[in-house]
């Protein structure tokens, strides 16, 4: 065999080897990259589907006498039962966190996937244990601390009403 042919064969063989090694490396690298992208996308999708807690600051405008915490809690549950049903209630996990019967301000824990339905259902409430009232949704917060801070602000603002 001619020496120049041997050289060409050696070069071609080494090039083919280099290309195959490089392609193997790229394949494994991209596979890892693809897997990591896939994992992050999945986690984002799961994260967005996850129900987050939200805190609704509200005020009870009393037209008669003050409902107590227990009375209001019961009335909110009744209103939700009528508005979103028992199964909806099971999913929302609504809880009356705080209610000051003197100032009328309170905090209700709801979940992010049922915000409008929950607020609308409790907004329809006009009677609580035969006491006429008006539930005024004020603001929605992501943390309980912010909700308490908002209550303080509102108590100062609406002290004259």
């Amino acid at each position, binding site marked *: 065999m001619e020496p120049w042919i041997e050289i060409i064969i050696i070069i071609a063989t080494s090039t083919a080897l280099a290309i195959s090694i490089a392609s193997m490396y790229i394949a494994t690298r991209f596979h890892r990259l693809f897997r990591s992208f896939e994992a992050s996308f999945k986690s984002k999708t799961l994260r967005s589907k996850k129900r987050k807690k939200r805190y609704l600051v509200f005020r009870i*405008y009393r*037209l008669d006498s003050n409902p107590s915490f227990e009375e209001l809690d019961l009335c909110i549950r009744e209103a939700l039962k*009528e508005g979103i049903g028992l199964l909806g209630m099971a999913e929302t996990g609504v809880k009356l966190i705080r209610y000051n019967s003197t100032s009328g301000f309170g905090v209700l824990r709801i979940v992010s996937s049922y*915000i*409008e*339905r929950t*607020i*609308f259902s409790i*907004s*329809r409430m*006009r009677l609580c244990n035969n006491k*006429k*009232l*008006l*539930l*005024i*949704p*004020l603001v929605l917060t992501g943390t309980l601390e912010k909700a308490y801070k908002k209550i303080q602000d509102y108590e100062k603002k*609406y002290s004259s*009403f």
Partner: protein
Amino acid sequence: MLYADLLTYIPLKEKEASDRVLSLYIMLGYRAIGIVGIDRVSNIGGLSIIPRVVVSDIDLFRPSRKVLVAFKPRSKEHARRAGKAKGVSTILFDRDNIDICDDEQIEVMRRSSTSLEVVISPLLDSNSMPRFLNRMEKCIKRAIREGVDVIIASGAREVEEIWAPGSIRSLCGLISIDHWNIIYSWVEVIRRWNPGLKL
């Protein structure tokens, strides 16, 4: 934000009751209210009070510059006729006539720039609420799609029938409409009715 409840029937004759209603509206953040039974525009503590009249008889229906007239049609024919009037009035739909609000009606109203007014007091009644909410949603969505101004009014006859702005917003979210379409449309309606009125 600017909120308005352009149709209420709460009598403001007794001073104590009147003060209570007005202070409640101010506390809720309303900038204007429309009341049936008064004859002139006034402003109390930044709250504009607009005189309203609701007419159900087509023969008595006359758009007016003194009071903001709402025509409540009893039949499709009357609704179409009223919809052709110039846009200084509103066509009112409530529990009794919400079925009349169809595509053709909205098209007539779009051509004449008449506004759509929906009274939401039936939503407080558990029996009529589901059906009314369904019809109301269709009616409002049609109107917004065609560019007709939409007003949501409480139609309150007593204090406890008043709705808070946050509740109206949740209602808008519930029926998948942008609440901005509702919140500011009343300003256009008032400006069209009385261009010189300061809000």
